[in-house]
């Protein structure tokens, strides 16, 4: 019967195991580039799928389930595992499981294995890290383990790629022959028998352990209807069943039974030696050296994203500039040329420009993660970040935000507590990123003179530092507020294995970088692309024939005043943006931004800056009819000459400039970040909330500053 079923339906094979069992390495070995990463429905937990060719010519879907210690979830990714394994109707319910266990820690890794075995899913046990076991003089008898637990067992090394032929052979065996469910390993108590029997009969479940899981986790099973869940809750009450104590009892009994069985098959020279890992940790997690070493690492990460990406970013920019030039010479000056160059090519350039930063951050983070260092960072900073509702891992995201919020937001995926992750995503864009620097550079001169105090400190340099400090305070302060507002049922734990330090597997690192870049380009790229085109439309088109009129006016003014070709073009561009929808929008919002000290020209720059903050500079240049330059000094000189027609005083006075600076620190003016937040939170709700609260804070801050200083 089963064979017929298997032959007609595409097979799903799941990889399962504890965290740090080397599961991802095995997955990468088995699938290579034939993998796809997405999200599990409703949650942003990585869903990694791959293809596995079977001996009979079929192709099976291989799924890399999140690492978990048991089937009693306390986090989102553990919940995903439970909801698949407790629901035979789930489309990802595996036809077979490859259970990966670290053979050097086999007793610890065996609990989940024994639970899954009782679900009656065909399973092969892969004893991973055979190379490490050999190095540590651990010997084991795979055949004896297979016999004792009635589970086919192979020893492999994911890192070395050792013995994968044997693993493949076992997988093929598993899916080709009839599978007989062996006797459950766990011995049910009378109370467990009673309640699981009732649940199994009522809902027609395949086996008693699945029924027991339903009883133990009723309110965590999202695939059940609310009626079913309350029916089960009713049964639990009726039977006086305590799910939590029952879990403890079950775990205890399993350990008590399999530990002696495993001890017989494994020999290790039990040493109480201090391992190399502990020696490294004596320094790396030291009370004083630990944080210092961490910040040294972060400095390297920050420096790398910031400095190493400059060259490839310049290359990408130059590439797109020459592409634009080529298109401009090949095509006549028409609307579609403008759409192609100012809309599509500019939009694509705006997406691809982030690739170097994303690639560099994930290269370094993946190495730190692979080596095992990240777990130490979490341990050291857990307490500090907890106060702000975040996780030890959040600190890496916050530091990376100093270069760019996009890779920072993407890096939060490793935070398993949803609330901690969300808060990190929401506040990371406050940290001043590299795109704000040109804006700060132009404006800071209007606020602080370039003088030296006490002989050493440049005042503008100090002001720059001040802007960064304000941004950090904004991030932590709002994190604290979110901590108070957001509610979660998830209890926050920190029970973290600090794995042995290991050399990174570069295949894993490179696949991770590739995956992150691909996800950004495809998922966030779509949104960025659409918004770029909308912004192009706003800046290039105006109501009725106002654009042509503006152009004609500018040209006749230019001929009267004998302007050269460049100056004429700049003047036309300036007049056109004024007549465009963006210009109208700028004028439309003028009453709203007047209390901040801005005129409609700044209004236009605020609107176009939404594409990216640095666009502020280009827009200013266009508005002031010096569009052919992009030199920050020239733009600042021109802005300094700008006079407010009503007061006759300079527009960029102290109050207005400071108010603009404050606005740029706080405001969420980066569509790319919003697009990434949408992807990482699984919908528009959080990016919209983020946009409004950040912009509201920016408005309020700028308003106060302007009102106080004007």
């Amino acid at each position, binding site marked *: 019967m089963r064979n017929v079923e298997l032959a007609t339906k595409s097979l799903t094979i799941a990889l399962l195991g504890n965290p740090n069992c080397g599961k991802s390495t095995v997955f990468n070995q088995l699938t290579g580039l034939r993998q796809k990463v997405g999200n599990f429905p409703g949650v942003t937990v990585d869903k990694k799928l791959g293809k596995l060719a079977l001996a009979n010519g079929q192709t099976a879907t291989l799924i890399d389930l999140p690492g978990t210690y048991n089937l009693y979830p306390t986090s989102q990714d553990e919940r995903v595992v439970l909801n698949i394994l407790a629901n035979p109707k789930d489309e990802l319910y595996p036809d077979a499981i490859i259970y990966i266990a670290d053979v050097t820690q086999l007793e610890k890794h065996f609990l989940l294995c024994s639970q899954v075995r009782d679900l009656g899913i065909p399973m092969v046990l892969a004893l991973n890290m055979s190379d490490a076991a050999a190095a540590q003089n651990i010997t084991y008898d795979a055949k004896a383990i297979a016999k004792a637990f009635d589970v086919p067992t192979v020893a492999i090394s994911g890192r070395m790629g050792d013995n994968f032929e044997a693993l493949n052979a076992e997988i093929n065996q598993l899916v080709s022959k009839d599978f007989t469910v062996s006797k459950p390993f766990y011995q049910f108590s009378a109370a467990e028998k009673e309640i699981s029997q009732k649940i199994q009969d009522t809902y027609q479940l395949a086996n008693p352990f699945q029924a027991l899981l339903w009883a133990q986790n009723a309110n965590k099973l999202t695939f059940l209807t609310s009626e079913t869940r309350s029916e089960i809750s009713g049964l639990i009450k009726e039977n006086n069943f305590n799910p939590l104590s029952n879990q*403890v009892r079950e775990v205890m009994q399993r350990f008590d039974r399999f530990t002696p069985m495993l001890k017989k098959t494994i020999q290790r020279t039990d040493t109480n030696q201090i391992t190399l890992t502990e020696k490294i940790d004596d320094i790396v997690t030291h009370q004083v050296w630990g944080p210092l070493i961490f910040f040294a690492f972060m400095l390297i990460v920050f420096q790398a994203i910031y400095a190493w990406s400059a060259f490839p970013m310049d290359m990408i920019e130059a590439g797109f500039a020459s592409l634009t030039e080529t298109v401009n010479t090949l095509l006549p000056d028409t609307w579609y040329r403008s759409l192609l160059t100012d809309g599509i090519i500019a939009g694509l350039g705006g997406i691809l420009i982030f690739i170097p930063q994303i690639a560099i951050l994930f290269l370094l983070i993946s190495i730190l993660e692979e080596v095992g260092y990240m777990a130490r960072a979490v341990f050291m900073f857990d307490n500090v970040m907890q106060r702000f509702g975040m996780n030890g891992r959040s600190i890496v995201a916050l530091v990376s935000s100093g270069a760019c919020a996009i890779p920072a937001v993407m890096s939060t995926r490793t935070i398993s507590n949803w609330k901690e992750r969300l808060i990190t995503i929401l506040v990371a864009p406050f940290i001043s990123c590299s795109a704000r620097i040109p804006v700060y550079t132009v404006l800071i001169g209007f606020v602080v003179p370039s003088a030296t105090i006490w002989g050493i400190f440049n005042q503008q340099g100090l002001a720059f530092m001040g802007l960064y400090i304000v941004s950090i305070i904004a991030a932590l302060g709002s994190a604290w507020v979110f901590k108070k507002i957001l509610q979660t049922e998830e209890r926050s734990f920190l029970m973290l294995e600090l794995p042995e330090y290991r050399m990174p597997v570069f295949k894993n690192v490179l696949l991770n970088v590739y995956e992150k870049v691909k996800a950004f380009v495809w998922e966030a790229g779509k949104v960025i692309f659409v918004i770029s085109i909308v912004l192009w439309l706003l800046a290039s088109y105006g109501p009725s024939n106002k654009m042509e009129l503006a152009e004609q006016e500018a040209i006749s003014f230019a001929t009267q005043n004998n302007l050269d070709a460049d100056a004429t073009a700049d003047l036309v561009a300036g007049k056109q943006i004024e007549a465009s929808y963006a210009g109208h929008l700028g004028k439309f919002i003028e009453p709203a931004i007047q209390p901040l000290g801005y005129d409609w020209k700044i209004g236009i720059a605020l609107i176009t800056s939404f594409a990216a903050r640095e666009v502020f500079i280009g827009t200013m240049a266009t508005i002031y009819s010096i569009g052919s330059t992009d030199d920050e000094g020239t733009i600042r000189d021109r802005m300094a000459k700008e006079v407010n027609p009503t007061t006759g005083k300079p527009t960029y006075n102290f109050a207005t400039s400071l108010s603009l600076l404050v606005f740029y620190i706080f405001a969420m003016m980066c569509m790319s970040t919003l697009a990434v937040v949408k992807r990482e939170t699984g919908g528009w709700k959080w990016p919209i909330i983020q946009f409004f609260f950040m912009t509201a804070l920016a408005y309020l801050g700028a308003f106060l500053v302007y009102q106080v200083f004007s």
Partner: protein
Amino acid sequence: MIELLALEPGKSAIIQSFSDEETACKMMSMGILPGSTVTFIRKAPFGGAIYIKADNQQFAIRNKEAACVMLS
């Protein structure tokens, strides 16, 4: 009987039980079991958590959780 949190850094003891079921379930599933020898290695630099070693494996746990581990 003392709590793991009350142990001096550098000292070892045997785990007897856990005073909270949810913590117990999680710790046991990770292999921190009654009967295991546990060593309090050091406190986190900014407090709040401790570095422990139980049966040849290192773990980081919060003070709150360490307070649930009873030693004999």
